[in-house]
Protein backbone atom coordinates (compact mmCIF):
# COMPACT_ATOMS: atom_id res chain seq x y z
CA UNK A 1 0.00 0.00 0.00
CA UNK A 2 1.42 3.33 -1.01
CA UNK A 3 1.29 6.06 1.60
CA UNK A 4 -0.92 8.01 -0.76
CA UNK A 5 -3.70 5.48 -0.37
CA UNK A 6 -4.47 6.53 3.17
CA UNK A 7 -7.60 8.57 2.60
CA UNK A 8 -8.49 9.05 6.24
CA UNK A 9 -9.02 12.75 6.71
CA UNK A 10 -8.15 13.88 3.21
CA UNK A 11 -10.29 16.57 1.64
CA UNK A 12 -12.39 15.32 -1.29
CA UNK A 13 -13.10 18.24 -3.63
CA UNK A 14 -16.76 18.83 -4.45
CA UNK A 15 -19.63 21.29 -4.37
CA UNK A 16 -22.42 19.41 -2.63
CA UNK A 17 -24.78 20.85 -0.01
CA UNK A 18 -22.56 19.25 2.62
CA UNK A 19 -19.46 20.89 1.19
CA UNK A 20 -21.23 24.25 1.24
CA UNK A 21 -22.34 24.12 4.87
CA UNK A 22 -20.62 26.45 7.30
CA UNK A 23 -17.72 24.61 8.96
CA UNK A 24 -19.16 25.47 12.38
CA UNK A 25 -22.42 23.73 11.53
CA UNK A 26 -20.52 20.69 10.34
CA UNK A 27 -18.34 20.64 13.44
CA UNK A 28 -21.28 20.81 15.83
CA UNK A 29 -23.20 18.34 13.69
CA UNK A 30 -20.33 15.88 13.73
CA UNK A 31 -19.90 16.20 17.48
CA UNK A 32 -23.64 15.58 17.96
CA UNK A 33 -23.48 12.61 15.63
CA UNK A 34 -20.57 11.12 17.55
CA UNK A 35 -22.37 11.71 20.85
CA UNK A 36 -25.50 10.10 19.42
CA UNK A 37 -23.51 6.94 18.73
CA UNK A 38 -22.96 6.65 22.47
CA UNK A 39 -26.59 7.38 23.28
CA UNK A 40 -27.69 4.49 21.07
CA UNK A 41 -28.69 1.45 23.10
CA UNK A 42 -29.72 -1.10 20.46
CA UNK A 43 -29.15 -2.27 16.91
CA UNK A 44 -32.27 -0.55 15.64
CA UNK A 45 -30.74 2.71 16.81
CA UNK A 46 -27.55 1.95 14.90
CA UNK A 47 -29.57 1.08 11.83
CA UNK A 48 -31.23 4.50 12.05
CA UNK A 49 -27.84 6.26 12.47
CA UNK A 50 -26.40 4.28 9.57
CA UNK A 51 -29.28 5.21 7.29
CA UNK A 52 -28.94 8.90 8.15
CA UNK A 53 -25.18 8.73 7.61
CA UNK A 54 -25.63 6.91 4.30
CA UNK A 55 -28.00 9.64 3.12
CA UNK A 56 -25.45 12.31 4.06
CA UNK A 57 -22.66 10.45 2.27
CA UNK A 58 -24.89 10.15 -0.78
CA UNK A 59 -25.59 13.90 -0.74
CA UNK A 60 -21.89 14.71 -0.28
CA UNK A 61 -21.00 12.86 -3.50
CA UNK A 62 -17.94 11.22 -1.91
CA UNK A 63 -17.77 7.70 -3.39
CA UNK A 64 -18.40 5.07 -0.73
CA UNK A 65 -15.39 3.08 -1.97
CA UNK A 66 -13.18 6.09 -1.37
CA UNK A 67 -14.47 6.53 2.17
CA UNK A 68 -14.08 2.87 2.96
CA UNK A 69 -10.40 3.13 2.09
CA UNK A 70 -10.01 5.29 5.18
CA UNK A 71 -10.98 2.26 7.25
CA UNK A 72 -7.95 0.38 6.01
CA UNK A 73 -5.68 2.47 8.21
CA UNK A 74 -7.56 1.56 11.40
CA UNK A 75 -8.87 -1.91 10.63
CA UNK A 76 -6.40 -3.34 13.12
CA UNK A 77 -7.82 -1.21 15.92
CA UNK A 78 -11.37 -2.27 15.12
CA UNK A 79 -10.57 -5.98 14.97
CA UNK A 80 -8.55 -5.72 18.18
CA UNK A 81 -11.37 -3.98 20.07
CA UNK A 82 -13.91 -6.49 18.81
CA UNK A 83 -11.73 -9.44 19.88
CA UNK A 84 -11.10 -8.02 23.35
CA UNK A 85 -14.84 -7.56 23.81
CA UNK A 86 -15.57 -10.97 22.38
CA UNK A 87 -13.35 -12.82 24.85
CA UNK A 88 -13.42 -10.58 27.89
CA UNK A 89 -17.12 -10.00 28.42
CA UNK A 90 -18.44 -12.18 31.22
CA UNK A 91 -21.84 -13.88 30.84
CA UNK A 92 -23.45 -17.10 29.64
CA UNK A 93 -20.65 -19.09 28.02
CA UNK A 94 -21.50 -20.72 24.68
CA UNK A 95 -18.03 -21.78 23.61
CA UNK A 96 -14.92 -22.61 25.58
CA UNK A 97 -11.36 -23.63 24.71
CA UNK A 98 -8.81 -23.65 27.53
CA UNK A 99 -8.83 -20.19 29.04
CA UNK A 100 -10.62 -18.74 26.01
CA UNK A 101 -14.33 -18.27 26.58
CA UNK A 102 -16.98 -16.69 24.44
CA UNK A 103 -20.18 -15.55 26.10
CA UNK A 104 -23.40 -14.61 24.34
CA UNK A 105 -23.06 -11.11 25.79
CA UNK A 106 -19.53 -11.03 24.35
CA UNK A 107 -20.74 -11.53 20.79
CA UNK A 108 -23.33 -8.83 21.29
CA UNK A 109 -20.75 -6.40 22.76
CA UNK A 110 -18.16 -7.15 20.08
CA UNK A 111 -20.62 -6.43 17.25
CA UNK A 112 -21.83 -3.35 19.07
CA UNK A 113 -18.34 -1.90 19.53
CA UNK A 114 -17.22 -2.71 15.99
CA UNK A 115 -20.29 -1.02 14.50
CA UNK A 116 -19.82 1.96 16.78
CA UNK A 117 -16.16 2.35 15.80
CA UNK A 118 -16.86 2.03 12.08
CA UNK A 119 -19.59 4.65 12.34
CA UNK A 120 -17.35 6.94 14.42
CA UNK A 121 -14.75 6.79 11.70
CA UNK A 122 -17.22 7.25 8.84
CA UNK A 123 -18.90 10.13 10.65
CA UNK A 124 -15.73 12.01 11.39
CA UNK A 125 -14.20 11.34 7.99
CA UNK A 126 -17.30 12.79 6.35
CA UNK A 127 -16.41 16.03 8.11
CA UNK A 128 -12.80 16.09 6.98
CA UNK A 129 -13.61 14.80 3.50
CA UNK A 130 -16.05 17.63 2.83
CA UNK A 131 -14.32 20.50 4.62
CA UNK A 132 -11.05 22.10 3.61
CA UNK A 133 -8.57 21.83 6.47
CA UNK A 134 -8.22 25.59 6.72
CA UNK A 135 -12.00 26.08 6.90
CA UNK A 136 -12.15 23.38 9.52
CA UNK A 137 -9.60 24.98 11.82
CA UNK A 138 -11.11 28.42 11.22
CA UNK A 139 -14.45 27.03 12.32
CA UNK A 140 -12.83 25.48 15.36
CA UNK A 141 -11.17 28.75 16.27
CA UNK A 142 -14.48 30.61 16.04
CA UNK A 143 -16.26 28.03 18.14
CA UNK A 144 -13.54 28.14 20.78
CA UNK A 145 -13.07 31.91 20.76
CA UNK A 146 -15.46 32.58 23.68
CA UNK A 147 -13.10 30.45 25.76
CA UNK A 148 -10.16 32.72 25.01
CA UNK A 149 -11.65 35.07 27.63
CA UNK A 150 -10.73 32.53 30.26
CA UNK A 151 -7.25 32.13 28.87
CA UNK A 152 -7.60 29.34 26.29
CA UNK A 153 -5.24 30.18 23.42
CA UNK A 154 -7.84 29.37 20.76
CA UNK A 155 -6.08 31.13 17.90
CA UNK A 156 -2.76 29.45 18.63
CA UNK A 157 -4.44 26.06 18.92
CA UNK A 158 -6.21 26.54 15.61
CA UNK A 159 -3.03 27.77 13.93
CA UNK A 160 -1.11 24.76 15.18
CA UNK A 161 -3.77 22.45 13.82
CA UNK A 162 -3.88 24.25 10.50
CA UNK A 163 -0.15 23.91 10.12
CA UNK A 164 -0.14 20.27 11.20
CA UNK A 165 -2.92 19.41 8.74
CA UNK A 166 -1.29 21.42 6.00
CA UNK A 167 1.98 19.54 6.38
CA UNK A 168 0.65 16.00 6.53
CA UNK A 169 0.67 15.63 2.73
CA UNK A 170 4.02 17.41 2.50
CA UNK A 171 5.60 15.04 4.97
CA UNK A 172 4.00 12.04 3.26
CA UNK A 173 5.49 13.23 -0.03
CA UNK A 174 8.82 13.72 1.63
CA UNK A 175 8.69 10.23 3.19
CA UNK A 176 7.81 8.76 -0.18
CA UNK A 177 10.73 10.53 -1.83
CA UNK A 178 13.28 9.52 0.79
CA UNK A 179 12.03 5.94 0.76
CA UNK A 180 12.49 5.83 -2.99
CA UNK A 181 15.95 7.36 -2.78
CA UNK A 182 17.05 4.79 -0.18
CA UNK A 183 15.40 1.94 -2.07
CA UNK A 184 17.47 3.01 -5.08
CA UNK A 185 20.48 2.36 -2.84
CA UNK A 186 19.24 -1.12 -2.10
CA UNK A 187 17.50 -0.39 1.21
CA UNK A 188 14.70 -2.80 2.04
CA UNK A 189 11.77 -1.56 4.11
CA UNK A 190 9.55 -4.57 3.64
CA UNK A 191 11.32 -7.75 4.73
CA UNK A 192 13.27 -9.00 7.72
CA UNK A 193 12.28 -9.52 11.32
CA UNK A 194 11.03 -6.80 13.63
CA UNK A 195 14.48 -5.77 14.82
CA UNK A 196 15.92 -5.60 11.31
CA UNK A 197 12.94 -3.61 10.15
CA UNK A 198 13.23 -1.13 13.00
CA UNK A 199 16.91 -0.68 12.20
CA UNK A 200 16.01 -0.32 8.54
CA UNK A 201 13.94 2.73 9.40
CA UNK A 202 16.96 4.81 10.43
CA UNK A 203 17.90 5.74 6.84
CA UNK A 204 14.31 6.96 6.47
CA UNK A 205 13.78 8.70 9.80
CA UNK A 206 17.01 10.69 10.00
CA UNK A 207 16.52 12.48 6.67
CA UNK A 208 12.82 12.88 7.46
CA UNK A 209 13.53 14.67 10.74
CA UNK A 210 16.12 16.83 9.05
CA UNK A 211 13.53 17.76 6.40
CA UNK A 212 10.83 18.41 8.99
CA UNK A 213 13.08 20.81 10.89
CA UNK A 214 14.10 22.53 7.67
CA UNK A 215 10.47 22.94 6.62
CA UNK A 216 9.49 24.24 10.07
CA UNK A 217 12.33 26.76 10.11
CA UNK A 218 11.46 27.97 6.60
CA UNK A 219 7.82 28.31 7.53
CA UNK A 220 8.55 30.24 10.72
CA UNK A 221 10.80 32.58 8.76
CA UNK A 222 8.19 33.11 6.05
CA UNK A 223 5.49 33.84 8.63
CA UNK A 224 7.66 36.31 10.48
CA UNK A 225 8.69 37.98 7.24
CA UNK A 226 4.99 38.65 6.70
CA UNK A 227 4.63 40.09 10.20
CA UNK A 228 2.60 37.27 11.73
CA UNK A 229 2.20 38.03 15.41
CA UNK A 230 -0.64 35.89 16.70
CA UNK A 231 -4.38 36.23 16.81
CA UNK A 232 -5.21 39.58 18.39
CA UNK A 233 -6.95 41.92 15.99
CA UNK A 234 -6.44 39.67 12.98
CA UNK A 235 -9.14 39.85 10.33
CA UNK A 236 -9.97 37.15 7.82
CA UNK A 237 -9.91 37.09 4.08
CA UNK A 238 -12.97 34.85 3.86
CA UNK A 239 -15.52 35.59 6.54
CA UNK A 240 -17.90 32.91 7.74
CA UNK A 241 -21.65 33.31 7.59
CA UNK A 242 -24.55 31.00 8.31
CA UNK A 243 -26.98 30.57 5.42
CA UNK A 244 -30.43 29.07 4.98
CA UNK A 245 -28.72 25.77 4.38
CA UNK A 246 -27.30 25.88 7.90
CA UNK A 247 -30.74 26.57 9.37
CA UNK A 248 -32.14 23.55 7.57
CA UNK A 249 -29.21 21.47 8.78
CA UNK A 250 -29.71 22.63 12.38
CA UNK A 251 -33.40 21.66 12.32
CA UNK A 252 -32.64 18.24 10.84
CA UNK A 253 -29.95 17.74 13.42
CA UNK A 254 -32.32 18.43 16.33
CA UNK A 255 -34.90 16.05 14.84
CA UNK A 256 -32.23 13.41 14.37
CA UNK A 257 -31.01 13.66 17.92
CA UNK A 258 -34.53 13.52 19.31
CA UNK A 259 -35.21 10.40 17.24
CA UNK A 260 -32.04 8.70 18.52
CA UNK A 261 -33.00 9.38 22.13
CA UNK A 262 -36.54 8.15 21.52
CA UNK A 263 -35.30 4.95 19.89
CA UNK A 264 -33.02 4.35 22.86
CA UNK A 265 -36.02 4.35 25.21
CA UNK A 266 -37.97 1.77 23.23
CA UNK A 267 -37.50 -1.89 24.13
CA UNK A 268 -36.05 -2.89 20.77
CA UNK A 269 -33.33 -5.36 19.82
Amino acid at each position, binding site marked *: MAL*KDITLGQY*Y*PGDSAIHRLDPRTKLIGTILFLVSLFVVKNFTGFLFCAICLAILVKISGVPFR*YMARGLKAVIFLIVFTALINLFMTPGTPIWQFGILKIAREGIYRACFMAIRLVMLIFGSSLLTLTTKPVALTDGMERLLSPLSKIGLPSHELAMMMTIALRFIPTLLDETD*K*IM*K*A*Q*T*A*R*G*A*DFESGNLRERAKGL*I*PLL*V*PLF*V*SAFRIAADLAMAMEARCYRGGDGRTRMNGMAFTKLDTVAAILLILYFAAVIALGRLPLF
Partner: protein
Amino acid sequence: MRIEVKDLSYIYSEGMPFESVALEDVSLTVESGEFAAVIGHTGSGKSTLLMHLNGLMKPTRGQVLADGVDIHEKTKEAREARRKVGLVFQYPEYQLFEETVLKDVCFGPKNYGFTPEECEAKAIEALKLVGIDPDEKGGVSPFELSGGEKRRVAIAGVLAMDPQVLILDEPTAGLDPKGHRDILDMVCRIHKEKHLTILLVSHNMDDAARLADRILVLDKGRLAMDGTPQEVFSHYEELHSIGLSTPSSSELLHLLKSKGLNVNTNIFNEDEAVEEILKAIHGA
Protein backbone atom coordinates in the same frame (compact mmCIF):
# COMPACT_ATOMS: atom_id res chain seq x y z
CA MET B 1 24.07 -1.95 -20.34
CA ARG B 2 21.25 -1.41 -22.76
CA ILE B 3 17.94 -0.07 -21.47
CA GLU B 4 14.76 -0.70 -23.38
CA VAL B 5 11.46 0.92 -22.51
CA LYS B 6 8.43 -0.61 -24.19
CA ASP B 7 5.04 1.13 -24.39
CA LEU B 8 5.39 2.43 -20.87
CA SER B 9 2.37 4.16 -19.31
CA TYR B 10 1.95 5.32 -15.75
CA ILE B 11 -1.09 6.81 -14.03
CA TYR B 12 -0.83 8.36 -10.57
CA SER B 13 -3.69 7.61 -8.12
CA GLU B 14 -5.56 5.54 -10.66
CA GLY B 15 -9.30 5.50 -9.97
CA MET B 16 -9.18 8.47 -7.61
CA PRO B 17 -10.42 11.98 -8.28
CA PHE B 18 -6.86 13.32 -8.52
CA GLU B 19 -5.86 10.74 -11.12
CA SER B 20 -3.14 12.05 -13.42
CA VAL B 21 -1.54 10.44 -16.41
CA ALA B 22 2.20 10.94 -16.05
CA LEU B 23 3.44 8.77 -18.90
CA GLU B 24 1.71 7.56 -22.01
CA ASP B 25 3.06 4.89 -24.34
CA VAL B 26 6.70 5.84 -24.06
CA SER B 27 9.07 3.60 -26.01
CA LEU B 28 12.78 4.18 -26.27
CA THR B 29 16.13 2.42 -26.20
CA VAL B 30 19.33 3.73 -24.68
CA GLU B 31 22.39 1.90 -25.95
CA SER B 32 25.31 0.91 -23.80
CA GLY B 33 27.79 3.78 -23.34
CA GLU B 34 25.44 6.44 -24.67
CA PHE B 35 25.09 9.87 -23.05
CA ALA B 36 21.45 10.88 -23.34
CA ALA B 37 19.81 14.04 -22.06
CA VAL B 38 16.13 14.10 -21.13
CA ILE B 39 14.47 17.48 -21.49
CA GLY B 40 10.89 18.56 -20.94
CA HIS B 41 8.72 21.13 -19.23
CA THR B 42 8.09 20.76 -15.48
CA GLY B 43 5.47 18.04 -15.01
CA SER B 44 6.16 16.42 -18.36
CA GLY B 45 6.96 13.11 -16.66
CA LYS B 46 10.77 13.09 -16.60
CA SER B 47 11.15 12.04 -12.97
CA THR B 48 8.41 9.44 -13.32
CA LEU B 49 10.18 7.95 -16.34
CA LEU B 50 13.53 7.79 -14.54
CA MET B 51 12.04 6.07 -11.51
CA HIS B 52 10.72 3.33 -13.78
CA LEU B 53 14.16 2.68 -15.20
CA ASN B 54 15.48 1.11 -12.03
CA GLY B 55 12.28 -0.52 -10.93
CA LEU B 56 11.26 1.95 -8.22
CA MET B 57 7.86 2.35 -9.81
CA LYS B 58 5.74 -0.33 -11.32
CA PRO B 59 4.38 0.57 -14.75
CA THR B 60 0.62 0.79 -15.17
CA ARG B 61 1.26 -0.72 -18.61
CA GLY B 62 4.38 -1.70 -20.53
CA GLN B 63 7.79 -2.84 -19.38
CA VAL B 64 11.41 -1.86 -18.83
CA LEU B 65 14.19 -4.21 -19.91
CA ALA B 66 17.83 -3.95 -18.83
CA ASP B 67 19.95 -6.10 -21.14
CA GLY B 68 16.78 -8.06 -21.85
CA VAL B 69 15.90 -8.66 -18.17
CA ASP B 70 12.54 -7.29 -17.01
CA ILE B 71 13.59 -5.01 -14.19
CA HIS B 72 10.39 -5.49 -12.20
CA GLU B 73 10.76 -9.22 -11.76
CA LYS B 74 11.32 -10.65 -8.28
CA THR B 75 14.32 -12.72 -9.45
CA LYS B 76 17.96 -12.37 -8.40
CA GLU B 77 18.85 -11.33 -11.93
CA ALA B 78 16.39 -8.48 -11.79
CA ARG B 79 17.71 -7.30 -8.43
CA GLU B 80 21.22 -7.36 -9.86
CA ALA B 81 20.00 -5.40 -12.87
CA ARG B 82 18.43 -2.80 -10.58
CA ARG B 83 21.76 -2.40 -8.79
CA LYS B 84 23.43 -1.73 -12.12
CA VAL B 85 21.04 1.10 -12.86
CA GLY B 86 22.09 3.83 -10.43
CA LEU B 87 19.57 6.59 -9.88
CA VAL B 88 20.52 9.94 -8.41
CA PHE B 89 17.39 11.83 -7.33
CA GLN B 90 16.74 15.51 -7.47
CA TYR B 91 18.27 17.11 -4.36
CA PRO B 92 20.02 13.83 -3.47
CA GLU B 93 21.65 15.43 -0.43
CA TYR B 94 18.35 14.96 1.45
CA GLN B 95 18.97 11.23 1.57
CA LEU B 96 22.17 11.47 3.66
CA PHE B 97 21.75 10.01 7.13
CA GLU B 98 24.88 8.31 8.46
CA GLU B 99 27.32 9.60 11.06
CA THR B 100 30.18 9.89 8.63
CA VAL B 101 30.58 10.50 4.93
CA LEU B 102 32.33 7.18 4.41
CA LYS B 103 29.62 5.19 6.21
CA ASP B 104 26.94 6.90 4.17
CA VAL B 105 28.61 6.04 0.89
CA CYS B 106 28.99 2.42 2.11
CA PHE B 107 25.22 2.13 2.62
CA GLY B 108 24.47 1.06 -0.97
CA PRO B 109 27.10 -1.67 -1.39
CA LYS B 110 26.35 -2.91 2.16
CA ASN B 111 22.72 -3.46 1.21
CA TYR B 112 23.83 -5.57 -1.72
CA GLY B 113 25.81 -7.87 0.54
CA PHE B 114 29.42 -6.85 -0.08
CA THR B 115 31.86 -7.43 2.79
CA PRO B 116 32.83 -4.41 4.93
CA GLU B 117 36.29 -4.29 3.28
CA GLU B 118 34.78 -4.34 -0.20
CA CYS B 119 32.27 -1.66 0.79
CA GLU B 120 34.99 0.60 2.07
CA ALA B 121 37.13 0.11 -1.01
CA LYS B 122 34.17 0.91 -3.24
CA ALA B 123 33.26 3.94 -1.13
CA ILE B 124 36.77 5.35 -1.27
CA GLU B 125 36.92 4.88 -5.02
CA ALA B 126 33.51 6.53 -5.46
CA LEU B 127 34.48 9.49 -3.29
CA LYS B 128 37.65 10.00 -5.33
CA LEU B 129 35.58 9.81 -8.50
CA VAL B 130 33.36 12.70 -7.38
CA GLY B 131 36.33 14.73 -6.23
CA ILE B 132 35.97 14.40 -2.47
CA ASP B 133 39.15 13.50 -0.61
CA PRO B 134 38.26 10.38 1.42
CA ASP B 135 41.13 10.92 3.90
CA GLU B 136 40.14 14.49 4.65
CA LYS B 137 36.31 14.26 4.53
CA GLY B 138 35.62 10.56 4.98
CA GLY B 139 35.34 10.84 8.75
CA VAL B 140 33.22 13.99 9.05
CA SER B 141 29.46 14.13 9.39
CA PRO B 142 27.74 14.59 6.03
CA PHE B 143 25.62 17.33 7.61
CA GLU B 144 28.70 19.51 8.09
CA LEU B 145 29.56 19.68 4.40
CA SER B 146 28.69 22.50 2.00
CA GLY B 147 25.71 22.10 -0.33
CA GLY B 148 27.81 21.17 -3.35
CA GLU B 149 29.87 18.69 -1.35
CA LYS B 150 26.78 17.05 0.13
CA ARG B 151 25.45 16.54 -3.34
CA ARG B 152 28.68 14.98 -4.53
CA VAL B 153 28.73 12.64 -1.54
CA ALA B 154 25.17 11.60 -2.36
CA ILE B 155 26.20 10.90 -5.96
CA ALA B 156 29.15 8.89 -4.64
CA GLY B 157 26.62 6.88 -2.62
CA VAL B 158 25.10 5.72 -5.90
CA LEU B 159 28.42 5.27 -7.71
CA ALA B 160 29.69 3.02 -4.92
CA MET B 161 27.24 0.37 -6.08
CA ASP B 162 29.21 0.05 -9.34
CA PRO B 163 26.35 0.94 -11.65
CA GLN B 164 26.66 0.50 -15.39
CA VAL B 165 24.01 3.08 -16.04
CA LEU B 166 23.95 6.38 -14.18
CA ILE B 167 20.73 8.34 -14.17
CA LEU B 168 20.73 11.87 -12.79
CA ASP B 169 17.56 13.89 -12.17
CA GLU B 170 18.44 17.58 -12.44
CA PRO B 171 21.74 17.16 -10.62
CA THR B 172 22.54 20.86 -10.76
CA ALA B 173 19.25 22.24 -9.39
CA GLY B 174 19.87 24.96 -6.84
CA LEU B 175 23.66 25.15 -7.27
CA ASP B 176 25.73 28.22 -8.05
CA PRO B 177 27.43 28.48 -11.48
CA LYS B 178 30.64 26.96 -10.21
CA GLY B 179 28.88 24.08 -8.46
CA HIS B 180 26.85 23.59 -11.62
CA ARG B 181 29.96 23.37 -13.81
CA ASP B 182 31.78 21.11 -11.33
CA ILE B 183 28.97 18.59 -11.20
CA LEU B 184 28.61 18.42 -14.97
CA ASP B 185 32.37 18.15 -15.53
CA MET B 186 32.34 15.33 -13.02
CA VAL B 187 29.51 13.53 -14.85
CA CYS B 188 31.41 13.95 -18.11
CA ARG B 189 34.59 12.57 -16.57
CA ILE B 190 32.74 9.57 -15.14
CA HIS B 191 31.21 8.92 -18.54
CA LYS B 192 34.62 8.93 -20.21
CA GLU B 193 36.62 7.10 -17.54
CA LYS B 194 34.14 4.43 -16.51
CA HIS B 195 32.29 4.12 -19.83
CA LEU B 196 28.95 4.36 -18.05
CA THR B 197 25.69 4.89 -19.87
CA ILE B 198 24.39 8.27 -18.72
CA LEU B 199 20.88 9.67 -18.62
CA LEU B 200 20.76 13.26 -17.51
CA VAL B 201 17.66 15.35 -16.89
CA SER B 202 18.41 18.97 -17.51
CA HIS B 203 16.58 22.25 -17.94
CA ASN B 204 19.61 23.80 -19.50
CA MET B 205 19.63 23.38 -23.28
CA ASP B 206 23.25 24.51 -23.54
CA ASP B 207 24.33 21.68 -21.25
CA ALA B 208 22.18 19.18 -23.11
CA ALA B 209 23.62 20.22 -26.49
CA ARG B 210 27.19 20.32 -25.23
CA LEU B 211 27.25 17.03 -23.34
CA ALA B 212 24.77 14.60 -24.82
CA ASP B 213 24.97 12.41 -27.93
CA ARG B 214 21.25 12.04 -27.83
CA ILE B 215 18.28 14.13 -26.72
CA LEU B 216 14.94 12.78 -25.53
CA VAL B 217 12.12 15.31 -25.37
CA LEU B 218 9.12 14.64 -23.16
CA ASP B 219 5.88 16.56 -23.44
CA LYS B 220 2.82 15.84 -21.28
CA GLY B 221 3.94 12.27 -20.66
CA ARG B 222 4.69 11.48 -24.30
CA LEU B 223 8.01 11.13 -26.05
CA ALA B 224 7.80 14.12 -28.39
CA MET B 225 11.25 13.89 -30.02
CA ASP B 226 14.22 11.58 -29.94
CA GLY B 227 17.44 12.24 -31.84
CA THR B 228 20.87 13.83 -31.90
CA PRO B 229 21.17 17.40 -30.56
CA GLN B 230 21.47 18.58 -34.18
CA GLU B 231 18.20 16.94 -35.16
CA VAL B 232 16.21 17.88 -32.06
CA PHE B 233 17.33 21.48 -31.72
CA SER B 234 16.63 22.24 -35.36
CA HIS B 235 12.92 22.06 -34.47
CA TYR B 236 12.84 25.61 -33.13
CA GLU B 237 9.07 26.28 -33.31
CA GLU B 238 8.07 22.87 -32.04
CA LEU B 239 10.33 23.15 -29.00
CA HIS B 240 9.00 26.61 -28.19
CA SER B 241 5.41 25.42 -28.50
CA ILE B 242 5.99 22.86 -25.71
CA GLY B 243 7.62 25.38 -23.39
CA LEU B 244 11.26 24.60 -24.18
CA SER B 245 13.90 26.43 -26.15
CA THR B 246 17.04 25.75 -28.15
CA PRO B 247 20.57 26.41 -26.85
CA SER B 248 21.31 30.10 -26.28
CA SER B 249 23.60 30.39 -29.34
CA SER B 250 20.82 29.14 -31.57
CA GLU B 251 18.29 31.46 -29.87
CA LEU B 252 20.62 34.39 -30.58
CA LEU B 253 21.06 33.39 -34.22
CA HIS B 254 17.28 33.12 -34.61
CA LEU B 255 16.95 36.65 -33.24
CA LEU B 256 19.60 37.97 -35.63
CA LYS B 257 17.92 36.22 -38.52
CA SER B 258 14.55 37.73 -37.65
CA LYS B 259 16.24 41.15 -37.74
CA GLY B 260 17.46 40.45 -41.25
CA LEU B 261 20.95 39.03 -40.81
CA ASN B 262 21.39 36.00 -43.02
CA VAL B 263 22.79 33.33 -40.69
CA ASN B 264 22.50 29.60 -40.27
CA THR B 265 20.46 29.11 -37.10
CA ASN B 266 21.35 25.47 -36.46
CA ILE B 267 24.53 26.10 -34.51
CA PHE B 268 24.59 25.02 -30.91
CA ASN B 269 27.87 26.15 -29.47
CA GLU B 270 29.22 29.58 -28.79
CA ASP B 271 32.47 29.44 -30.77
CA GLU B 272 30.79 28.33 -33.97
CA ALA B 273 28.04 30.86 -33.44
CA VAL B 274 30.61 33.68 -33.21
CA GLU B 275 32.27 32.46 -36.43
CA GLU B 276 28.91 32.36 -38.17
CA ILE B 277 27.95 35.87 -37.06
CA LEU B 278 31.30 37.34 -38.06
CA LYS B 279 31.08 35.61 -41.42
CA ALA B 280 27.58 36.98 -41.99
CA ILE B 281 28.58 40.54 -41.03
CA HIS B 282 31.80 40.63 -43.05
CA GLY B 283 30.24 38.83 -45.95
CA ALA B 284 27.39 41.39 -46.07
